[in-house]
Protein backbone atom coordinates (compact mmCIF):
# COMPACT_ATOMS: atom_id res chain seq x y z
CA UNK A 1 0.00 0.00 0.00
CA UNK A 2 2.70 2.44 0.96
CA UNK A 3 4.78 1.48 -2.07
CA UNK A 4 1.83 2.01 -4.44
CA UNK A 5 1.10 5.39 -2.84
CA UNK A 6 4.73 6.42 -3.31
CA UNK A 7 4.69 5.34 -6.98
CA UNK A 8 1.43 7.23 -7.56
CA UNK A 9 2.85 10.35 -5.94
CA UNK A 10 6.00 10.08 -8.04
CA UNK A 11 3.97 9.69 -11.20
CA UNK A 12 1.83 12.69 -10.31
CA UNK A 13 4.95 14.76 -9.61
CA UNK A 14 6.47 13.81 -13.00
CA UNK A 15 3.26 14.60 -14.83
CA UNK A 16 2.99 17.87 -12.97
CA UNK A 17 6.53 18.82 -13.95
CA UNK A 18 5.84 17.97 -17.59
CA UNK A 19 2.69 20.08 -17.58
CA UNK A 20 4.63 22.98 -16.09
CA UNK A 21 7.32 22.62 -18.76
CA UNK A 22 4.70 22.59 -21.54
CA UNK A 23 3.02 25.69 -20.12
CA UNK A 24 6.31 27.58 -19.91
CA UNK A 25 7.25 26.56 -23.49
CA UNK A 26 3.88 27.77 -24.74
CA UNK A 27 4.17 31.02 -22.82
CA UNK A 28 7.62 31.85 -24.18
CA UNK A 29 7.87 35.53 -25.04
CA UNK A 30 7.97 36.90 -28.60
CA UNK A 31 11.64 38.06 -28.54
CA UNK A 32 12.77 34.69 -27.20
CA UNK A 33 10.65 32.92 -29.82
CA UNK A 34 12.17 35.06 -32.56
CA UNK A 35 15.63 34.04 -31.41
CA UNK A 36 14.59 30.40 -31.42
CA UNK A 37 13.13 30.75 -34.90
CA UNK A 38 16.35 32.26 -36.21
CA UNK A 39 18.39 29.56 -34.49
CA UNK A 40 16.19 26.88 -36.05
CA UNK A 41 16.67 28.44 -39.47
CA UNK A 42 20.43 28.57 -39.01
CA UNK A 43 20.40 24.92 -37.93
CA UNK A 44 18.63 23.94 -41.15
CA UNK A 45 21.17 25.91 -43.20
CA UNK A 46 24.08 24.25 -41.41
CA UNK A 47 22.64 20.79 -41.98
CA UNK A 48 22.05 21.65 -45.64
CA UNK A 49 25.60 22.97 -46.07
CA UNK A 50 27.09 19.87 -44.47
CA UNK A 51 24.86 17.46 -46.38
CA UNK A 52 25.51 19.04 -49.80
CA UNK A 53 28.25 17.18 -51.58
CA UNK A 54 28.47 14.59 -48.81
CA UNK A 55 25.06 12.99 -48.42
CA UNK A 56 23.35 14.53 -51.43
CA UNK A 57 24.81 15.45 -54.83
CA UNK A 58 25.41 19.18 -54.83
CA UNK A 59 24.14 19.36 -58.41
CA UNK A 60 20.71 18.44 -57.05
CA UNK A 61 20.51 20.70 -53.97
CA UNK A 62 23.33 23.28 -54.33
CA UNK A 63 24.38 24.63 -50.90
CA UNK A 64 23.46 27.70 -48.79
CA UNK A 65 26.71 29.55 -49.47
CA UNK A 66 26.27 29.20 -53.24
CA UNK A 67 22.67 30.33 -52.95
CA UNK A 68 23.63 33.37 -50.88
CA UNK A 69 26.40 34.15 -53.35
CA UNK A 70 23.94 34.04 -56.27
CA UNK A 71 21.47 36.23 -54.40
CA UNK A 72 24.19 38.73 -53.65
CA UNK A 73 25.25 38.71 -57.29
CA UNK A 74 21.72 39.59 -58.35
CA UNK A 75 21.34 42.27 -55.70
CA UNK A 76 24.72 43.84 -56.44
CA UNK A 77 24.02 43.95 -60.18
CA UNK A 78 20.51 45.24 -59.54
CA UNK A 79 19.01 42.71 -61.94
CA UNK A 80 16.82 41.10 -59.27
CA UNK A 81 14.61 44.18 -58.80
CA UNK A 82 13.10 44.08 -62.30
CA UNK A 83 12.02 40.51 -61.68
CA UNK A 84 10.82 41.19 -58.13
CA UNK A 85 8.75 44.15 -59.28
CA UNK A 86 7.19 42.20 -62.17
CA UNK A 87 6.12 39.43 -59.78
CA UNK A 88 4.98 41.76 -57.00
CA UNK A 89 2.93 43.90 -59.39
CA UNK A 90 1.16 40.94 -61.01
CA UNK A 91 0.58 39.30 -57.62
CA UNK A 92 -0.88 42.42 -56.01
CA UNK A 93 -3.15 43.26 -58.94
CA UNK A 94 -4.26 39.63 -59.30
CA UNK A 95 -4.86 39.38 -55.58
CA UNK A 96 -6.88 42.61 -55.54
CA UNK A 97 -9.05 41.51 -58.44
CA UNK A 98 -9.55 37.99 -57.08
CA UNK A 99 -10.23 39.23 -53.56
CA UNK A 100 -12.74 41.84 -54.70
CA UNK A 101 -14.54 39.35 -56.91
CA UNK A 102 -14.48 36.71 -54.16
CA UNK A 103 -15.89 39.06 -51.51
CA UNK A 104 -18.58 40.45 -53.79
CA UNK A 105 -19.53 36.98 -55.01
CA UNK A 106 -19.49 35.51 -51.52
CA UNK A 107 -21.66 38.26 -50.05
CA UNK A 108 -24.07 38.21 -52.98
CA UNK A 109 -24.61 34.47 -52.91
CA UNK A 110 -24.49 34.36 -49.12
CA UNK A 111 -27.45 36.74 -48.98
CA UNK A 112 -29.36 34.98 -51.74
CA UNK A 113 -30.42 31.44 -50.86
CA UNK A 114 -31.98 30.90 -54.29
CA UNK A 115 -28.86 31.90 -56.23
CA UNK A 116 -26.55 30.00 -53.95
CA UNK A 117 -28.55 26.82 -54.48
CA UNK A 118 -28.76 27.42 -58.22
CA UNK A 119 -25.04 28.02 -58.70
CA UNK A 120 -23.72 25.70 -56.00
CA UNK A 121 -22.84 22.65 -58.18
CA UNK A 122 -21.19 24.78 -60.84
CA UNK A 123 -19.11 26.69 -58.35
CA UNK A 124 -17.85 23.55 -56.66
CA UNK A 125 -17.21 21.86 -59.99
CA UNK A 126 -15.11 24.76 -61.17
CA UNK A 127 -13.40 24.95 -57.80
CA UNK A 128 -12.32 21.32 -58.17
CA UNK A 129 -10.50 22.03 -61.44
CA UNK A 130 -6.73 22.21 -61.16
CA UNK A 131 -6.62 25.86 -62.07
CA UNK A 132 -2.93 25.89 -62.87
CA UNK A 133 -3.83 23.61 -65.77
CA UNK A 134 -5.68 26.63 -67.12
CA UNK A 135 -2.38 28.46 -67.48
CA UNK A 136 -1.83 27.67 -71.19
CA UNK A 137 -5.46 28.68 -71.87
CA UNK A 138 -4.96 31.93 -70.03
CA UNK A 139 -1.86 32.62 -72.10
CA UNK A 140 -4.03 32.08 -75.16
CA UNK A 141 -6.82 34.34 -73.88
CA UNK A 142 -4.84 37.07 -72.19
CA UNK A 143 -1.58 36.97 -74.12
CA UNK A 144 2.07 36.61 -73.27
CA UNK A 145 2.23 39.81 -71.25
CA UNK A 146 1.48 40.48 -67.60
CA UNK A 147 -2.30 40.16 -68.02
CA UNK A 148 -2.19 36.38 -68.17
CA UNK A 149 -0.21 36.25 -64.92
CA UNK A 150 -2.67 38.62 -63.23
CA UNK A 151 -5.58 36.50 -64.47
CA UNK A 152 -4.00 33.29 -63.17
CA UNK A 153 -3.33 34.87 -59.77
CA UNK A 154 -6.88 36.24 -59.63
CA UNK A 155 -8.54 32.92 -60.48
CA UNK A 156 -6.57 31.11 -57.77
CA UNK A 157 -7.57 33.76 -55.21
CA UNK A 158 -11.24 34.24 -56.08
CA UNK A 159 -12.48 30.82 -55.03
CA UNK A 160 -10.67 30.77 -51.73
CA UNK A 161 -11.98 34.19 -50.80
CA UNK A 162 -15.44 33.38 -52.14
CA UNK A 163 -15.79 30.22 -50.08
CA UNK A 164 -14.72 31.86 -46.81
CA UNK A 165 -16.81 35.00 -47.43
CA UNK A 166 -19.85 32.91 -48.30
CA UNK A 167 -19.43 30.89 -45.11
CA UNK A 168 -18.96 34.05 -43.07
CA UNK A 169 -22.11 35.65 -44.44
CA UNK A 170 -24.14 32.50 -43.82
CA UNK A 171 -22.88 32.39 -40.23
CA UNK A 172 -24.22 35.82 -39.36
CA UNK A 173 -26.61 35.67 -36.39
CA UNK A 174 -30.11 35.54 -37.85
CA UNK A 175 -31.63 36.91 -34.67
CA UNK A 176 -29.50 40.01 -35.07
CA UNK A 177 -30.52 40.64 -38.66
CA UNK A 178 -34.15 39.87 -37.88
CA UNK A 179 -34.07 42.36 -35.03
CA UNK A 180 -32.69 45.07 -37.25
CA UNK A 181 -35.27 44.31 -39.90
CA UNK A 182 -38.02 44.67 -37.31
CA UNK A 183 -36.54 48.01 -36.34
CA UNK A 184 -36.91 49.15 -39.95
CA UNK A 185 -33.31 48.82 -41.13
CA UNK A 186 -32.80 48.76 -44.89
CA UNK A 187 -30.96 45.96 -46.67
CA UNK A 188 -27.86 48.07 -47.14
CA UNK A 189 -27.88 49.03 -43.45
CA UNK A 190 -28.05 45.38 -42.47
CA UNK A 191 -25.28 44.60 -44.96
CA UNK A 192 -22.86 47.30 -43.84
CA UNK A 193 -23.65 47.36 -40.13
CA UNK A 194 -24.07 43.67 -39.38
CA UNK A 195 -23.28 41.25 -42.18
CA UNK A 196 -19.93 42.62 -43.34
CA UNK A 197 -18.51 43.35 -39.87
CA UNK A 198 -19.57 39.88 -38.72
CA UNK A 199 -18.06 38.22 -41.75
CA UNK A 200 -14.78 40.13 -41.52
CA UNK A 201 -12.91 37.37 -39.71
CA UNK A 202 -14.02 34.83 -42.26
CA UNK A 203 -13.08 37.15 -45.11
CA UNK A 204 -9.62 37.65 -43.68
CA UNK A 205 -9.14 33.92 -43.27
CA UNK A 206 -9.82 33.64 -46.98
CA UNK A 207 -7.53 36.54 -47.80
CA UNK A 208 -4.65 35.17 -45.73
CA UNK A 209 -5.06 31.71 -47.20
CA UNK A 210 -5.15 33.05 -50.74
CA UNK A 211 -2.07 35.31 -50.56
CA UNK A 212 0.41 32.52 -51.32
CA UNK A 213 -1.89 31.30 -54.09
CA UNK A 214 -1.79 34.69 -55.77
CA UNK A 215 1.98 34.40 -55.74
CA UNK A 216 1.82 30.82 -57.02
CA UNK A 217 -0.45 31.82 -59.90
CA UNK A 218 1.88 34.61 -60.91
CA UNK A 219 4.98 32.42 -60.63
CA UNK A 220 3.41 29.64 -62.72
CA UNK A 221 2.40 32.13 -65.40
CA UNK A 222 5.95 33.48 -65.46
CA UNK A 223 7.43 29.99 -65.70
CA UNK A 224 5.27 29.25 -68.72
CA UNK A 225 5.66 32.42 -70.72
CA UNK A 226 7.56 35.52 -69.67
CA UNK A 227 10.71 37.53 -70.03
CA UNK A 228 10.81 38.80 -66.45
CA UNK A 229 9.64 37.85 -63.00
CA UNK A 230 10.77 35.42 -60.33
CA UNK A 231 9.11 32.48 -62.09
CA UNK A 232 11.04 33.36 -65.23
CA UNK A 233 14.23 33.44 -63.12
CA UNK A 234 13.49 29.96 -61.77
CA UNK A 235 13.00 28.64 -65.32
CA UNK A 236 16.08 30.41 -66.64
CA UNK A 237 18.27 29.17 -63.81
CA UNK A 238 16.96 25.64 -64.28
CA UNK A 239 17.68 25.70 -68.01
CA UNK A 240 21.23 26.88 -67.30
CA UNK A 241 21.83 24.03 -64.83
CA UNK A 242 22.11 26.70 -62.13
CA UNK A 243 20.67 24.96 -59.07
CA UNK A 244 21.93 27.75 -56.81
CA UNK A 245 20.00 30.22 -58.95
CA UNK A 246 16.83 28.15 -58.68
CA UNK A 247 17.08 28.09 -54.91
CA UNK A 248 17.98 31.78 -54.77
CA UNK A 249 14.83 32.66 -56.71
CA UNK A 250 12.80 30.39 -54.42
CA UNK A 251 14.23 32.18 -51.37
CA UNK A 252 13.08 35.53 -52.76
CA UNK A 253 9.64 34.06 -53.48
CA UNK A 254 9.40 32.76 -49.90
CA UNK A 255 10.40 36.14 -48.46
CA UNK A 256 7.72 37.84 -50.57
CA UNK A 257 5.12 35.34 -49.34
CA UNK A 258 5.99 36.11 -45.73
CA UNK A 259 5.83 39.87 -46.35
CA UNK A 260 2.44 39.66 -48.06
CA UNK A 261 1.11 37.50 -45.26
CA UNK A 262 2.27 40.00 -42.65
CA UNK A 263 0.68 42.87 -44.54
CA UNK A 264 -2.68 41.10 -44.68
CA UNK A 265 -2.37 40.26 -41.00
CA UNK A 266 -1.69 43.92 -40.13
CA UNK A 267 -4.67 45.10 -42.17
CA UNK A 268 -6.81 42.54 -40.40
CA UNK A 269 -5.69 43.78 -36.98
CA UNK A 270 -6.60 47.36 -37.88
CA UNK A 271 -9.97 46.46 -39.32
CA UNK A 272 -10.93 44.16 -36.48
CA UNK A 273 -9.85 46.45 -33.69
CA UNK A 274 -13.45 46.73 -32.54
CA UNK A 275 -13.73 43.01 -31.91
CA UNK A 276 -13.59 41.59 -28.41
CA UNK A 277 -11.08 38.78 -28.77
CA UNK A 278 -11.49 37.15 -25.38
CA UNK A 279 -12.78 37.78 -21.88
Amino acid at each position, binding site marked *: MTVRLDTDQEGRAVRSRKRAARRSAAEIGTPAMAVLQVAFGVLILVVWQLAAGRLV*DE*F*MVSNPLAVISRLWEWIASGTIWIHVWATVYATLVGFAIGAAAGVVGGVWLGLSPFLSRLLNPYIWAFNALPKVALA*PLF*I*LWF*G*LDINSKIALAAVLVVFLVFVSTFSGVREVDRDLTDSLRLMGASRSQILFKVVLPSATSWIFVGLKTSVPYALIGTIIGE*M*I*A*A*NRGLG*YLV*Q*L*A*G*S*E*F*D*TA*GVFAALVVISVLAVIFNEIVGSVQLRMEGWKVVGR
Partner: protein
Amino acid sequence: MKSIRFALVAVLSAMVMCTAAAAQEAVKIVNIGHGYFSGPLYVAVREGIFKKHGLDAEVITVKGGALAFQAVFTEEADFGILSYEHVLTAAAQGRNIVSIFNIADRPLNNVVADNELLEANKDKSLAERVRALKGHRVGTPSAGGSGEKMLRVLAREYGLTLPGDVELAYLGGDPAAYVGAFRGDVVDAAMPFEPAGVLLEQEGLGGTLINIMSGEVEAFRDLIFMTVATYPGMLEKNPELVKKVVAAFLEAQTVLLDPERGKAIMAAEFPKLTPEANDRAYETVRQIWTEDGRMTLEGAKKVYDYLQPEGTATIDYEATFTNAYLPE
Protein backbone atom coordinates in the same frame (compact mmCIF):
# COMPACT_ATOMS: atom_id res chain seq x y z
CA MET B 1 8.82 84.17 -76.08
CA LYS B 2 9.32 81.53 -73.41
CA SER B 3 6.23 79.64 -74.54
CA ILE B 4 7.45 79.66 -78.16
CA ARG B 5 10.79 78.23 -77.04
CA PHE B 6 9.06 75.50 -75.04
CA ALA B 7 6.85 74.64 -78.00
CA LEU B 8 9.89 74.43 -80.29
CA VAL B 9 11.72 72.13 -77.89
CA ALA B 10 8.62 69.92 -77.58
CA VAL B 11 8.24 69.65 -81.35
CA LEU B 12 11.93 68.92 -81.86
CA SER B 13 11.90 66.26 -79.11
CA ALA B 14 8.87 64.62 -80.67
CA MET B 15 10.60 64.58 -84.06
CA VAL B 16 13.71 62.98 -82.55
CA MET B 17 11.61 60.38 -80.75
CA CYS B 18 9.64 59.60 -83.89
CA THR B 19 12.81 59.28 -85.88
CA ALA B 20 14.32 57.00 -83.27
CA ALA B 21 11.16 54.91 -83.14
CA ALA B 22 10.97 54.69 -86.91
CA ALA B 23 14.60 53.60 -87.07
CA GLN B 24 13.97 50.70 -84.67
CA GLU B 25 10.98 48.58 -85.56
CA ALA B 26 9.53 46.73 -82.59
CA VAL B 27 9.30 42.98 -83.03
CA LYS B 28 8.21 40.28 -80.56
CA ILE B 29 9.97 36.93 -80.79
CA VAL B 30 9.16 33.87 -78.72
CA ASN B 31 11.81 31.34 -77.82
CA ILE B 32 11.29 27.86 -76.41
CA GLY B 33 12.88 27.92 -72.98
CA HIS B 34 16.51 28.90 -73.04
CA GLY B 35 17.70 26.17 -75.33
CA TYR B 36 21.27 26.05 -76.55
CA PHE B 37 19.92 25.41 -80.06
CA SER B 38 18.60 28.98 -80.26
CA GLY B 39 22.17 30.19 -80.60
CA PRO B 40 21.56 32.70 -83.43
CA LEU B 41 18.89 34.45 -81.33
CA TYR B 42 21.33 35.01 -78.46
CA VAL B 43 24.04 36.13 -80.88
CA ALA B 44 21.65 38.58 -82.53
CA VAL B 45 20.72 40.07 -79.16
CA ARG B 46 24.21 40.16 -77.65
CA GLU B 47 26.03 41.43 -80.73
CA GLY B 48 23.46 44.12 -81.51
CA ILE B 49 22.58 42.48 -84.82
CA PHE B 50 18.88 43.11 -84.39
CA LYS B 51 19.55 46.80 -83.77
CA LYS B 52 21.86 46.91 -86.78
CA HIS B 53 18.97 45.71 -88.95
CA GLY B 54 16.63 48.28 -87.45
CA LEU B 55 14.86 45.95 -85.08
CA ASP B 56 13.92 46.51 -81.46
CA ALA B 57 13.50 42.86 -80.52
CA GLU B 58 11.61 41.75 -77.42
CA VAL B 59 12.30 38.10 -76.69
CA ILE B 60 9.79 36.17 -74.62
CA THR B 61 10.52 32.74 -73.28
CA VAL B 62 7.75 30.17 -73.35
CA LYS B 63 7.66 26.68 -71.94
CA GLY B 64 7.29 24.24 -74.78
CA GLY B 65 6.97 24.30 -78.52
CA ALA B 66 3.18 24.11 -78.38
CA LEU B 67 3.02 27.45 -76.58
CA ALA B 68 5.49 28.98 -78.99
CA PHE B 69 3.33 27.80 -81.87
CA GLN B 70 0.22 29.14 -80.18
CA ALA B 71 1.83 32.54 -79.61
CA VAL B 72 2.74 32.88 -83.30
CA PHE B 73 -0.50 31.39 -84.61
CA THR B 74 -2.62 33.78 -82.53
CA GLU B 75 -0.36 36.65 -83.66
CA GLU B 76 0.48 37.37 -80.03
CA ALA B 77 4.10 37.15 -81.15
CA ASP B 78 5.43 38.27 -84.52
CA PHE B 79 7.96 35.48 -84.89
CA GLY B 80 8.86 32.35 -83.01
CA ILE B 81 11.67 29.87 -82.82
CA LEU B 82 9.90 26.60 -83.10
CA SER B 83 10.25 23.15 -84.45
CA TYR B 84 9.10 22.45 -88.01
CA GLU B 85 7.34 19.45 -86.46
CA HIS B 86 4.87 21.87 -84.90
CA VAL B 87 4.45 23.65 -88.24
CA LEU B 88 3.63 20.33 -89.93
CA THR B 89 1.38 19.12 -87.11
CA ALA B 90 -0.59 22.36 -87.33
CA ALA B 91 -0.74 22.17 -91.14
CA ALA B 92 -2.20 18.67 -90.86
CA GLN B 93 -4.98 20.23 -88.80
CA GLY B 94 -5.53 23.02 -91.28
CA ARG B 95 -3.70 25.71 -89.30
CA ASN B 96 -0.85 27.39 -91.12
CA ILE B 97 2.26 29.14 -90.04
CA VAL B 98 5.33 29.55 -92.21
CA SER B 99 8.98 28.78 -91.50
CA ILE B 100 11.21 31.51 -92.93
CA PHE B 101 14.68 30.47 -91.72
CA ASN B 102 16.08 27.05 -90.88
CA ILE B 103 18.24 27.29 -87.78
CA ALA B 104 18.98 23.57 -87.46
CA ASP B 105 18.71 20.81 -90.06
CA ARG B 106 19.03 17.88 -87.68
CA PRO B 107 17.32 16.92 -84.43
CA LEU B 108 18.42 18.34 -81.10
CA ASN B 109 18.82 14.92 -79.54
CA ASN B 110 21.35 12.15 -79.50
CA VAL B 111 20.75 8.75 -77.95
CA VAL B 112 22.85 8.70 -74.80
CA ALA B 113 23.44 5.65 -72.65
CA ASP B 114 24.96 4.76 -69.32
CA ASN B 115 28.56 3.65 -69.11
CA GLU B 116 27.71 -0.04 -69.05
CA LEU B 117 25.67 0.11 -72.24
CA LEU B 118 28.27 2.33 -73.89
CA GLU B 119 31.16 0.04 -73.05
CA ALA B 120 29.30 -3.04 -74.21
CA ASN B 121 28.57 -1.47 -77.61
CA LYS B 122 31.72 0.42 -78.34
CA ASP B 123 32.76 0.15 -82.03
CA LYS B 124 29.59 -1.69 -82.99
CA SER B 125 27.48 -0.85 -86.02
CA LEU B 126 24.49 1.46 -85.88
CA ALA B 127 22.11 -1.50 -86.16
CA GLU B 128 23.78 -3.30 -83.27
CA ARG B 129 23.74 -0.21 -81.10
CA VAL B 130 20.03 0.33 -81.70
CA ARG B 131 19.27 -3.34 -80.96
CA ALA B 132 21.32 -3.02 -77.77
CA LEU B 133 18.45 -0.90 -76.38
CA LYS B 134 16.26 -3.99 -76.23
CA GLY B 135 15.19 -4.77 -72.69
CA HIS B 136 16.26 -1.36 -71.43
CA ARG B 137 14.47 1.72 -70.17
CA VAL B 138 14.90 4.83 -72.32
CA GLY B 139 14.03 8.36 -71.24
CA THR B 140 12.48 10.82 -73.69
CA PRO B 141 11.19 14.34 -73.11
CA SER B 142 7.48 13.72 -73.55
CA ALA B 143 4.86 11.19 -74.51
CA GLY B 144 4.24 11.25 -78.24
CA GLY B 145 6.94 13.85 -78.71
CA SER B 146 9.53 13.90 -81.46
CA GLY B 147 12.06 12.05 -79.29
CA GLU B 148 9.70 9.12 -78.98
CA LYS B 149 8.83 9.27 -82.67
CA MET B 150 12.47 9.24 -83.70
CA LEU B 151 13.08 6.30 -81.41
CA ARG B 152 10.19 4.47 -83.08
CA VAL B 153 11.78 5.07 -86.48
CA LEU B 154 15.04 3.57 -85.25
CA ALA B 155 13.24 0.69 -83.57
CA ARG B 156 11.19 -0.10 -86.69
CA GLU B 157 14.26 0.10 -88.90
CA TYR B 158 16.23 -2.37 -86.81
CA GLY B 159 13.54 -4.82 -85.73
CA LEU B 160 12.53 -3.64 -82.29
CA THR B 161 9.01 -2.99 -81.02
CA LEU B 162 8.14 0.08 -79.08
CA PRO B 163 6.75 -0.33 -76.47
CA GLY B 164 7.61 -3.92 -75.81
CA ASP B 165 11.28 -4.31 -76.49
CA VAL B 166 12.05 -0.89 -75.09
CA GLU B 167 10.35 0.69 -72.09
CA LEU B 168 9.91 4.44 -72.21
CA ALA B 169 10.11 6.97 -69.37
CA TYR B 170 9.10 10.60 -69.87
CA LEU B 171 11.54 12.96 -68.20
CA GLY B 172 10.68 16.37 -69.63
CA GLY B 173 13.03 18.83 -71.26
CA ASP B 174 15.28 19.88 -68.37
CA PRO B 175 18.80 18.39 -68.37
CA ALA B 176 18.79 18.06 -64.59
CA ALA B 177 16.02 15.48 -64.83
CA TYR B 178 18.26 13.27 -66.96
CA VAL B 179 21.20 13.64 -64.62
CA GLY B 180 18.92 12.60 -61.77
CA ALA B 181 17.47 9.72 -63.78
CA PHE B 182 20.88 8.34 -64.66
CA ARG B 183 22.16 8.75 -61.13
CA GLY B 184 19.14 6.97 -59.74
CA ASP B 185 19.33 4.22 -62.38
CA VAL B 186 15.83 5.13 -63.45
CA VAL B 187 16.86 4.82 -67.10
CA ASP B 188 19.67 3.11 -68.96
CA ALA B 189 19.53 5.38 -71.99
CA ALA B 190 17.79 8.56 -73.06
CA MET B 191 17.15 10.99 -75.88
CA PRO B 192 17.45 14.35 -74.15
CA PHE B 193 17.81 17.71 -75.85
CA GLU B 194 21.46 18.58 -76.05
CA PRO B 195 23.56 19.68 -74.28
CA ALA B 196 22.02 17.39 -71.61
CA GLY B 197 24.09 14.56 -73.07
CA VAL B 198 27.21 16.69 -72.68
CA LEU B 199 26.31 17.25 -69.05
CA LEU B 200 25.84 13.51 -68.49
CA GLU B 201 29.25 12.92 -69.98
CA GLN B 202 30.79 15.59 -67.76
CA GLU B 203 29.20 13.96 -64.72
CA GLY B 204 30.69 10.62 -65.75
CA LEU B 205 27.24 9.06 -66.04
CA GLY B 206 27.32 8.06 -69.68
CA GLY B 207 27.85 9.23 -73.22
CA THR B 208 26.58 9.26 -76.78
CA LEU B 209 25.49 5.87 -78.04
CA ILE B 210 23.94 7.03 -81.34
CA ASN B 211 25.13 10.34 -82.73
CA ILE B 212 22.05 11.61 -84.55
CA MET B 213 23.31 15.18 -84.47
CA SER B 214 26.44 14.27 -86.44
CA GLY B 215 24.25 12.89 -89.20
CA GLU B 216 24.85 9.24 -88.36
CA VAL B 217 21.21 8.36 -89.13
CA GLU B 218 20.21 9.13 -92.71
CA ALA B 219 16.53 9.56 -91.89
CA PHE B 220 17.39 12.47 -89.61
CA ARG B 221 19.75 14.40 -91.88
CA ASP B 222 19.08 17.48 -94.01
CA LEU B 223 15.73 18.20 -92.45
CA ILE B 224 13.82 21.35 -91.83
CA PHE B 225 14.04 21.11 -88.06
CA MET B 226 14.33 24.14 -85.82
CA THR B 227 13.10 27.23 -87.61
CA VAL B 228 12.14 30.85 -87.29
CA ALA B 229 8.46 31.00 -88.17
CA THR B 230 5.73 33.56 -88.53
CA TYR B 231 2.05 33.70 -89.39
CA PRO B 232 0.97 34.09 -93.05
CA GLY B 233 -0.54 37.52 -92.40
CA MET B 234 2.89 38.89 -91.48
CA LEU B 235 4.25 37.89 -94.90
CA GLU B 236 1.42 39.78 -96.54
CA LYS B 237 1.27 42.91 -94.41
CA ASN B 238 4.94 43.46 -93.60
CA PRO B 239 7.36 41.60 -95.91
CA GLU B 240 10.07 44.17 -95.18
CA LEU B 241 10.02 43.26 -91.51
CA VAL B 242 10.27 39.59 -92.41
CA LYS B 243 13.25 40.37 -94.64
CA LYS B 244 14.97 42.24 -91.81
CA VAL B 245 14.38 39.41 -89.33
CA VAL B 246 15.72 36.82 -91.76
CA ALA B 247 18.74 38.99 -92.55
CA ALA B 248 19.44 39.39 -88.83
CA PHE B 249 19.22 35.66 -88.20
CA LEU B 250 21.41 34.90 -91.20
CA GLU B 251 24.10 37.27 -89.99
CA ALA B 252 23.82 35.94 -86.45
CA GLN B 253 24.07 32.36 -87.69
CA THR B 254 27.25 33.22 -89.58
CA VAL B 255 28.80 34.73 -86.46
CA LEU B 256 27.65 31.75 -84.41
CA LEU B 257 29.30 29.26 -86.74
CA ASP B 258 32.65 31.03 -86.35
CA PRO B 259 34.17 28.96 -83.51
CA GLU B 260 36.22 31.87 -82.20
CA ARG B 261 33.26 34.17 -81.79
CA GLY B 262 30.37 31.76 -81.45
CA LYS B 263 31.85 29.76 -78.60
CA ALA B 264 32.58 32.89 -76.57
CA ILE B 265 29.11 34.32 -77.12
CA MET B 266 27.47 31.06 -76.07
CA ALA B 267 29.73 30.93 -73.00
CA ALA B 268 28.46 34.38 -72.06
CA GLU B 269 24.88 33.29 -72.65
CA PHE B 270 25.30 30.18 -70.50
CA PRO B 271 27.64 31.41 -67.75
CA LYS B 272 26.90 28.50 -65.45
CA LEU B 273 28.38 25.97 -67.88
CA THR B 274 32.03 25.24 -67.21
CA PRO B 275 34.33 26.25 -70.11
CA GLU B 276 34.86 22.57 -70.91
CA ALA B 277 31.11 21.89 -70.90
CA ASN B 278 30.48 24.91 -73.10
CA ASP B 279 33.17 23.81 -75.54
CA ARG B 280 31.63 20.34 -75.78
CA ALA B 281 28.10 21.75 -76.02
CA TYR B 282 29.14 24.14 -78.78
CA GLU B 283 30.91 21.42 -80.76
CA THR B 284 27.91 19.10 -80.36
CA VAL B 285 25.20 21.60 -81.31
CA ARG B 286 27.28 23.32 -83.99
CA GLN B 287 26.81 20.19 -86.08
CA ILE B 288 23.15 20.97 -86.59
CA TRP B 289 23.21 24.73 -87.20
CA THR B 290 22.74 25.45 -90.90
CA GLU B 291 25.10 27.54 -92.99
CA ASP B 292 22.48 29.54 -94.83
CA GLY B 293 19.04 28.93 -93.33
CA ARG B 294 17.70 27.34 -96.51
CA MET B 295 14.91 24.76 -96.50
CA THR B 296 14.04 22.07 -99.05
CA LEU B 297 10.97 20.09 -99.96
CA GLU B 298 12.92 16.87 -99.35
CA GLY B 299 13.73 18.07 -95.85
CA ALA B 300 10.07 18.84 -95.19
CA LYS B 301 8.94 15.43 -96.40
CA LYS B 302 11.57 13.63 -94.33
CA VAL B 303 10.13 15.25 -91.20
CA TYR B 304 6.64 14.18 -92.24
CA ASP B 305 7.88 10.61 -92.76
CA TYR B 306 8.95 10.11 -89.15
CA LEU B 307 6.44 12.45 -87.55
CA GLN B 308 3.27 11.17 -89.24
CA PRO B 309 1.19 14.02 -87.77
CA GLU B 310 -2.48 13.44 -86.97
CA GLY B 311 -4.99 15.45 -88.96
CA THR B 312 -7.29 15.34 -91.93
CA ALA B 313 -6.05 18.33 -93.89
CA THR B 314 -3.83 17.77 -96.92
CA ILE B 315 -0.47 19.35 -96.31
CA ASP B 316 0.71 21.83 -98.89
CA TYR B 317 4.42 21.67 -98.08
CA GLU B 318 5.21 24.74 -100.15
CA ALA B 319 2.93 26.76 -97.90
CA THR B 320 4.74 25.68 -94.75
CA PHE B 321 8.13 27.17 -95.54
CA THR B 322 9.73 29.78 -97.77
CA ASN B 323 13.26 30.74 -98.78
CA ALA B 324 11.95 33.91 -100.44
CA TYR B 325 13.37 36.19 -97.77
CA LEU B 326 16.85 34.71 -97.88
CA PRO B 327 19.38 36.45 -100.15
CA GLU B 328 19.88 34.85 -103.56
